[in-house]
């Protein structure tokens, strides 16, 4: 647990002009490795500029006709999600979480100024309005959703979008060749925004949410559920910002900034009865994995180093594996595929790649889950090239890879990455012995010439 206790300074980000309230938020912030903020008005969103990755959570919006009965439950659920997300992020170090508030916000504003799309645009600096923006190269995970109440049931529909600002999220694999300089094969990620499968929570579980909320929404003197404490104020007029100083056995010790709220211990690993919340809402595991993936990529880019890279990678992969285990067949195809792609990328990226065969299996599974995705098929193809070249083409056959690339191209005929991969691939396999390449030289030449003609025409455009 030593890593969880590590706290180290990160640079402050003050590059953007900010208003008086923002000064309160930013000037003293993020001297620690993890930080959180609750109750930030949704139309003036905020992130921790010093954090390598931020998780921003928009409160779940009630879609029922009668909004009132659910309002409190939605707020409590949102805070529980934030506590769980922040706690799960602690292990990565250099991360921040913010919960936006939709109190005092009209339904119209929820669909406009406080929509997930607008909030993200503000945080990325595409439109004005954020108190603090995500700095270039750093990561953000935005989580939002809708609730619908019917009798004793609540239906939860969650969405996620995750990215690094101004960075084209691609996987680039280097393949050594005997005759030439190393060849690189590239592929973009499929859409990094999608809906999870809807979940149904019944009235008993809702009561458990309430109990869990009351456990979490207290800042206590000691890491003990029976210890006295102060309630966390959710009033958006009084935002509460804190940094996490220490984590221990499901508790985190927070320190409030500038007397914005109480300091002490918060119970951060909520459960619904005997079931940890992540098992009931597996998307929390996905969020944990996505934060880890982004943190890893930010580290690889040299923007914000991480002291324990291998451990970070394994934490992220474990979270993604848990997501797969607990969401199972009910999960949306996109979410399942993306979990495999993130995990496969973690396998294959970095100075010390893990097993290429494992990555190849995960990319193949992703392409099977979303067979209409050229991006997923292309990633599967390039990981096969990587594995094939490493295994002297014993694991995968060039003819099979050629088929994968052609199928990817049919689904995205103007994709320059795929065409370039094809060009390099045919150049790579051409010198191989006939028994290995399993393709006729004339066929390779014909395809290579066709690919080069298309690339030439794209160059002229």
């Amino acid at each position, binding site marked *: 647990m030593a890593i969880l206790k590590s706290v180290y300074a990160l640079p402050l980000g003050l590059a953007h002009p900010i208003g008086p309230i923002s000064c309160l938020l930013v000037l003293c912030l993020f001297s620690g490795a993890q930080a959180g903020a609750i109750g930030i008005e949704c139309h003036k969103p905020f992130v921790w500029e010093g954090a390598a990755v931020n998780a921003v959570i928009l409160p779940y919006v009630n*879609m*029922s*006709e009668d909004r009132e009965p659910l309002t409190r439950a939605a707020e409590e659920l949102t805070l529980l999600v934030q506590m769980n997300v922040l706690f799960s992020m602690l292990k990565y170090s250099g991360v921040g979480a913010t919960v936006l508030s939709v109190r005092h916000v009209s339904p119209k504003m929820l*669909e406009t100024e406080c929509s997930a799309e607008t909030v993200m645009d503000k945080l990325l600096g595409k439109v004005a309005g954020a108190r603090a923006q995500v700095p270039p190269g750093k990561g953000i995970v935005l989580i939002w959703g*809708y609730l*619908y109440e*019917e*009798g004793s049931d609540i*239906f939860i*529909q969650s*969405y996620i*979008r995750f990215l690094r600002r101004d960075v084209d999220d691609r996987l680039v694999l280097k393949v050594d060749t005997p005759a030439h300089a190393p060849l690189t094969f590239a592929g973009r990620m499929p*859409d990094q*925004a*999608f*809906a999870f*499968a*809807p*979940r*149904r929570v019944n009235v008993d579980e809702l009561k458990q949410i309430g109990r869990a909320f009351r456990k979490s929404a207290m800042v206590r003197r000691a890491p003990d559920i029976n210890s006295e404490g102060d309630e966390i104020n959710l009033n958006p007029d009084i935002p509460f910002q804190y940094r996490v100083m220490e984590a221990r056995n499901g508790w985190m010790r927070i320190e409030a900034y500038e007397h914005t709220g109480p300091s002490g211990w918060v119970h951060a690993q909520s459960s619904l009865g005997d079931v940890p919340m992540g098992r009931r809402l597996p998307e929390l595991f996905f969020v944990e994995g996505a934060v880890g993936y982004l943190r890893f990529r930010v580290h690889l880019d040299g923007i914000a180093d991480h002291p324990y890279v291998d451990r970070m990678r394994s934490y992220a992969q474990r979270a993604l594996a848990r997501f797969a285990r607990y969401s199972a067949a*009910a999960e*949306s*195809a996109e979410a399942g595929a993306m979990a495999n792609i993130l995990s496969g990328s973690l396998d294959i990226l970095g100075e010390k790649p893990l097993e290429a065969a494992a990555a190849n299996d995960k990319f193949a599974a992703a392409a099977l889950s979303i*067979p*209409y995705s*050229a991006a997923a*098929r292309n990633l599967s193809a390039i990981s096969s090239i990587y594995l094939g070249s490493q295994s002297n083409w014993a694991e995968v056959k060039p003819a099979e890879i050629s088929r994968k690339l*052609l*199928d990817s*191209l*049919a*689904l*995205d*005929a*103007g994709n320059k990455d795929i*065409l370039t991969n094809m060009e390099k691939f045919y150049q790579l396999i051409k010198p191989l012995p006939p028994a290995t390449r399993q393709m006729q030289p004339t066929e390779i030449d014909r*395809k290579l010439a*066709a*690919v080069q*003609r*298309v690339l030439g*025409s*794209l160059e002229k455009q």
Partner: protein
Amino acid sequence: MLGRREASWMAVGATVAVIFSLLSVQLGETQTIDCVESLSGGIYQIYLDELDYTKEGLQNDPQLQNLMQRLYFKLRTNAKGLTLSSTPVPLAVALCKGRKPKGEVSFNKRMVESLDDSDVILELWGLLDAKQLDGQVSNRNASICFVLIPVLLDEYLNPLQPGLQFVTYPKAPDIASGELINLLEQSLELETFAAIGIGVNLLKNKKYDEAMKYICKARILLQPMVASGGNESRKALKDYVEETARQIIVKARGDANYAGALIELVDPVNPCP
């Protein structure tokens, strides 16, 4: 071309449709579509209409009310999910308050052309129905109609006529009425039909590579629907999609301005993987 369930529903709604048909033929050309978020100019739109009941009195049935609410939640959140995927131009969902089409008669050619001009790729409307006998309500069901606007426009020349696609609930006849819709199931119809609408729209604009992307996506998503005993209209739609994919290749190869991968690197007979 409708399956038995759709045909049955259509019979139930036939009287209503006839009553409204004369009205809608007149309204069709002039009716203002009042959509909350209706946008124009380079944005694909999905119109989500209000759901309605087939006959008076059903609106007082609590289970049907629940069904309507849950169905609307499902359609709205699914459509919002679709808007997250990257498309050649943004995709938006417009909530059309007060708009309640009553059948194909509500979509005359001029109306469909007008919707197509506004880049509306899909319109969803639905009716809830049940049997009423001695004050008792039973056999509750719902039918959602997906109007594939660019396909419907094409349909005036196309014998397959797959522009209107119905999804009925409950999907399995043995589901109890209280469990009419299992929200935890994967529903791929909306994603499939939206992909077709976008693909056909792109083909009309001679964006062959992008059109192929969406048409092949639809082809892949339709395959299991048809393989698992899909109805006739779904099979007709699959045939239409496969023919559209081949037409994309033909038109791309016939276009002197096109020099992309569809010319030599994609199979002209079975273009989609």
